[in-house]
């Protein structure tokens, strides 16, 4: 089971890495923001998988924190007028 979860986390991390290309390519800042959003979700998923696989203490709490703050960056972006 552990191996499976690890493999899944590696896979999702790789997906995240590929998704990062959008951050690189843009073209608009809003695309980058979205890619970061995906990365956040993927990261949380990978974190949960890793945490469960290797019984890391506090992994879910970290995920909780990340989830709470997930929208924060994007909201800041829109609020600062980044989308206009």
């Amino acid at each position, binding site marked *: 089971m552990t*191996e499976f979860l*690890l*493999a899944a*986390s*590696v896979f999702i*991390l*790789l997906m*995240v*890495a590929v998704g*990062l290309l959008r*951050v*690189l390519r*843009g073209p608009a*800042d809003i695309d*980058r*923001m979205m*890619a*970061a959003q995906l*990365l*956040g979700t993927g*990261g949380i998923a*990978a*974190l949960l998988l*890793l*945490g469960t*696989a*290797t019984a*890391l*203490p*506090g*992994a879910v*709490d*970290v995920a*909780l*924190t*990340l989830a*709470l*703050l997930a*929208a*924060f*960056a994007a*909201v*800041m*972006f*829109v*609020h*600062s*007028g*980044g989308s206009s």
Partner: protein
Amino acid sequence: MSLALLADAALVLLVLGLAFWINAASRAFPAVVGYVAFGLLLALAWLRLSAGDVAMTEAAVGSGVTGAVLIAASVRLRSAETEAPPPALPLRLLALLLSGLVTAALAGLVLWTTGPAPSLADQAVQHLPGLGMGNAVTGVLIAYRALDTLLEKVVLLLALMGIWSLAKDRYWGGIPGPSRIQPTNGALILLARLLPPIGIVVAVYILWVGATDPGGAFQGGAILAAMWLLVMLAGLRDAPAISRPWVRLCVTVGPAAFIAVGLTGFALPNGFLSYPDSIAKPLIIAVESVLTLSIAVILGLLVAGPPERQP
């Protein structure tokens, strides 16, 4: 290579790739977005290093709040970009050489020392029961090295004062952040109504769980600050004028309480910043709770920036 190591390797490669991207991006904004992602991945790395407390701090502060500050700044500074040319090529090569040298030295040292490192873990754990704590990191922060934590709170206060000091004189005592007629945004308002209650619960939980598991005052405070900022961003509440007595009170009460508890230690055999055995845990939790409040307000105001409007 085991799968776990593969996961580590993937993580490290991602982290490094982002680091290079952050340096190489042609504009600030993509770099900043990269940094937000970088912080998130770093939190994962911290977990992999069995440092849950750090992971949580990194997630809340390194990625979350720092990212917010940087994103806002990069948007405001958009029009100032491409002003200065990068240094000449020989200079860049020299820079590459020298920073590479530092990396090589550090890498060499990392590879050279492979055995278990000297550690204070035993000692730290040994004294934990006396404090009624289960989380050694919290023990270090609040007891063994409490002086650092105390001084770090003063650093936070000074940083806040530093940011406030950047206000124009006429706005002193005013409200942080630029005024903006915010188009009401249903989704954002909904989020700002829904999330904070949950956030507060989580923050309290993290503060509480910090005694035994990863978590603590700072992480809790950061979450609270984020919730508060969310409310401000949604336009539900304006940022408070910095001259408000309650702002001053909230900002200072934590450090003040910490100092006060520290000073009462003089009455105890172990002196300054020691806790009486019998009530160590409640006392520590009490101090941490007040600190959490102060940290939340300070962090929120640090992100909000200097006053830019009259109250």
